[in-house]
């Protein structure tokens, strides 16, 4: 056989074989396939011989010929791992009381830790959506009785405090005032209870509650105007346009001047509607 007109099997198939085959089996297997190939070249022609070679290479991809991936060596010590499991199982069975105390203690402490992680991450995720969150402060009041400064705080303060802060302190940009309110709101035949606040227009400056419809700087300017959230609006009006309609609360008619996006879940201020703050002053004067 002359070297130069020798026909070789397809190179990529040989490379594939070299790649998947165990090194200790590779050499003679390669030789066998080459021998068959050379025989087939003579009897069946080059094209068919090459095809048969490729098919054979694929055929030899079997469990016993493929080499193990390197990472499997990590698990080869399974005998040792089995021994560890067995001995630790035995020591658990031997010291029943102390194993029980240890396992229960570990379980309790781990669950306490997990609960703490859950609570903390929940607390820390509140009110994150406010753009000005690091500039917002809350005015609270401390209760004093007969000159005794106690430690009893209240989360609210007088409305006068708001005016006082705005007039006498420098560096205060906006003061948002909120008074909670709830009641039945009527539109035609429908009556629906809603929770919310009386609020002044500065609310939209201080906090980041988005208005879908209406102008945030004017929505709460006029007395007897009302901002509803999307959900509240659809409760009252269904698919109808809510903006500009008037609804009745405590025998007084209010105009819808804005539709707000629903309050995010992680907000500690939750409302379904907002009434303009100066309405409160008018109502209280009447009373």
């Amino acid at each position: 056989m002359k070297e130069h007109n020798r026909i070789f099997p397809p190179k990529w198939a040989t490379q594939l074989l070299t790649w998947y085959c165990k090194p200790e089996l590779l050499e003679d297997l390669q030789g066998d396939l080459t021998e068959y190939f050379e025989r087939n070249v003579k009897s069946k022609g080059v094209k068919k011989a090459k095809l048969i070679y490729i098919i054979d290479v694929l055929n030899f991809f079997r469990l016993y010929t493929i080499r193990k991936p390197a990472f499997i060596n990590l698990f080869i010590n399974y005998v040792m791992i089995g021994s560890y499991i067995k001995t630790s199982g035995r020591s658990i069975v031997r010291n029943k009381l102390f194993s029980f105390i240890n396992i229960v203690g570990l379980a309790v402490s781990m669950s306490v830790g997990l609960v703490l992680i859950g609570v903390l991450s929940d607390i820390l995720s509140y009110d994150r959506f406010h753009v000005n969150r690091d500039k917002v402060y809350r005015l609270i009041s401390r209760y004093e009785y007969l000159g005794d400064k106690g430690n009893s705080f209240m989360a609210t303060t007088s409305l006068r405090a708001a005016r006082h802060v705005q007039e006498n302190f420098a560096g205060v940009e906006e003061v948002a005032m909120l008074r909670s309110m709830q009641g039945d709101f009527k539109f035609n035949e429908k009556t629906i209870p809603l929770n919310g606040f009386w609020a002044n227009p500065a609310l939209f400056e201080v906090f980041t509650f988005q208005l879908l419809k209406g102008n945030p700087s004017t929505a709460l300017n006029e007395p007897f105007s009302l901002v509803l959230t999307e959900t509240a609006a659809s409760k009252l009006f269904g698919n109808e346009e809510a903006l500009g309609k008037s609804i009745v609360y405590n025998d007084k008619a209010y105009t819808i001047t804005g539709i707000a996006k629903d309050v995010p879940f992680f907000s500690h201020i939750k409302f379904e509607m907002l009434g303009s703050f100066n309405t409160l002053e008018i109502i209280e004067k009447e009373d």
Partner: protein
Amino acid sequence: MKGTNLGEFEELVLLTVASMVNEAYSVAICDDLEKKTKRSVKLGVVHAVLNRLEEKGLAKSRLGEATNARGGKRKRYYTVTNAGKSALLKAKELRDQYWSIIPELSLKRI
């Protein structure tokens, strides 16, 4: 460990290895089997069986010398181990036992 019983094809391969003495390598075994049994024998099957026989300890292998043929690759020659010989004998004895029981009359009708 798998059982030391021989399957039919395993027995044939092992017998071929024994009969070829020092020339038993996969392709030659394959050719010989094809000639004697008159059925097509796939190299892959023979290779797998040889591998299994070696795993069971019935045959052992060594690599031969490199030659110009086969792309310069060495051949793997197989020989039967003592365990292999005893397994072959056991299989033969089992057959002989049955043959000795079968009355000649029943065979003549074939």
